[in-house]
C-alpha cells in the first residue's frame, strides 16, 4: 500500500494525506488524554 501511495499519488495529495494523518494522531492523543477525566 505504501508502494502504491508513493507511485500513484501526486505530491500535493501525499502532503495532504500526511498532514491529515498527523492531525488525526494529534486529535486521538488529545481525546485519550482528556478521557482520563471521565472516570
Amino acid at each position: 500500500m505504501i508502494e502504491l501511495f508513493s507511485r500513484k499519488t501526486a505530491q500535493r495529495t501525499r502532503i495532504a494525506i500526511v498532514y491529515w494523518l498527523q492531525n488525526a494522531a494529534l486529535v486521538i492523543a488529545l481525546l485519550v488524554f482528556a478521557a482520563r477525566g471521565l472516570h
Partner: protein
Amino acid sequence: MNPILLCALYLATVMLPLALSWMSAKPPRPFWDELASGAGMLAFAIILTEFVLSGRFRTVSRKIGMDITMRFHQLLARTALVLAVLHPFLYQSPFNRVQPWDTTRQFAITSDFTNLATGIAAWILLGAFVLLSIGRDRIHYTYETWRLAHGLGALLIAALLLHHTLEAGRYSQDPALAAVWIILFAIALFTLIWVYAIKPSSQRGEPWTVQSVERQGLKTWQVTLSPDGHKGLDYEAGQFAWLNTNDTPFTLNEHPFSISSAPASGPNLEFIIKELGDHTAKTGQIKPGTRAFVDGPHGHLVITDRNEPGIGLIAGGVGIAPLIGIMRQLKLEEDTCPQILLYGNRSAEQIACNTELEDFAQAENRDVIHVLSEPPEKWTGETGIMDADCIARVFNKPDMKQWVYVLCGPAPMMETAEDTLISLGVPANQILSERFQYD
C-alpha cells in the same frame, strides 16, 4: 533524515508535553478541562516546532525538500491556531483564585490576571499573525518587512505563551514539564539566532563578488558570482541558495534563487533571475564588483544519484533556472542518456538562454520543445499553455515511463505536469519538483 522518521519525531516532540502531563501524579479533572489544557499544550508545542521547520536546516529539508518542509510549516500553523482558539472556551471549571488547599489546581482554573494576560495577548496575536501570514501575498508589504514581522512576531507570541504556560498551566507546575517547555523555547530561539546571526557570521568569511550580469531574455538576467578568497560552494546541479547582494551578510534582504551553473564548470556560481516586479526588479542594475553572500546549497531537485534511462525536463518561465543547471552539468559530464526539455513561456522574447538551448538541441538524443502562449507570426512550434495534451504529446512513448522527470515553474503548471505524467504511467517517485509558492 528519512521522511517517516521525521514525521514520527515531529509527533513525538509535539506530544511530549501531553505525555509528561499524563505521567504526572496529578489527578485528572473533568473531560472538558483536560481537553482544554491538552489543546493548549499541543498548540504551544506545535508553535515552538514551527521555528525548526522554517530554520533552513538541511537535515530536515534535504530528504523531503525545503518546499515541503515549508508547506508543513504553513499547514501546521493552521492546526495550532484551531487548537489555540478552542483552548480557553473548552474549560468548564470556574476561573477562580486557586485556593491554598488545592495544591494540584484540580478545582479551579486560575484567574490571576498577570498569568492570563500573557495568554490572552498571545491568543489575539496568534490569530492575527496566522491570518496575516496566509494573506501575505494580498498584503503588499516588502519581503524584508514580512521577514522581520514574522520572526519578531513569532518570537513575541512564543515568549508570551511560555510565561502563560509556566505560570497558569496546571501541569507545567511539574518541574520536568516546565523544563521541557523551556528547552523547546530555547531551541526555537536558537533557530532564529541560527538564521539571523550564526549563518551570516559564517558567510562573512566566505564572500562572493559579482562578475557579470548578462541579459538572457526579456527581463531575465544571469548573475555570475566568483568566490572571494575561498573555494566556493559544494553544491549539486538543480539546487538553490539564498542570495544577498548587500555589503553585509547581516541583512533581511536575501532571497532564494535556483543555481543555474553546473558544479563541474568550476567555482563560479550563476543564477538566472527574472524581474517580477518585486525585489528582483533591480537585478539588471547590479554592478560587477558588488559584494555578495550566499547561503546554501539547499533543495532536493537533484538527479545525481538517479539511474533512470532518460530525463524529461519541464519548465515554465524562470523555472528554467535549475533545469539549465542540470543540463549544463550533464553536458559537461558527457552524459549520453536521452534528454528532452519542454519549456513554456508567454512570448519568444521571454525564452532564457535561447542560443544555448539551440546548441543543446543539436546534440544527439537531446531535444528542446518550446511552448508559447503568445507565439509570433510564422511560429511552427507548440502553442497555447502547457496543458495535459501538450505534455502527453511529448512524453507518451512507452520507454519514457522509465525516465526521471524534473519540474520547475508556476504551481498550476507543475500540478498539471505531475498529474499528466502519473496518468501516463510514470511513478510519482520518478517525478522531482520544487516550489517556491505553496498556497
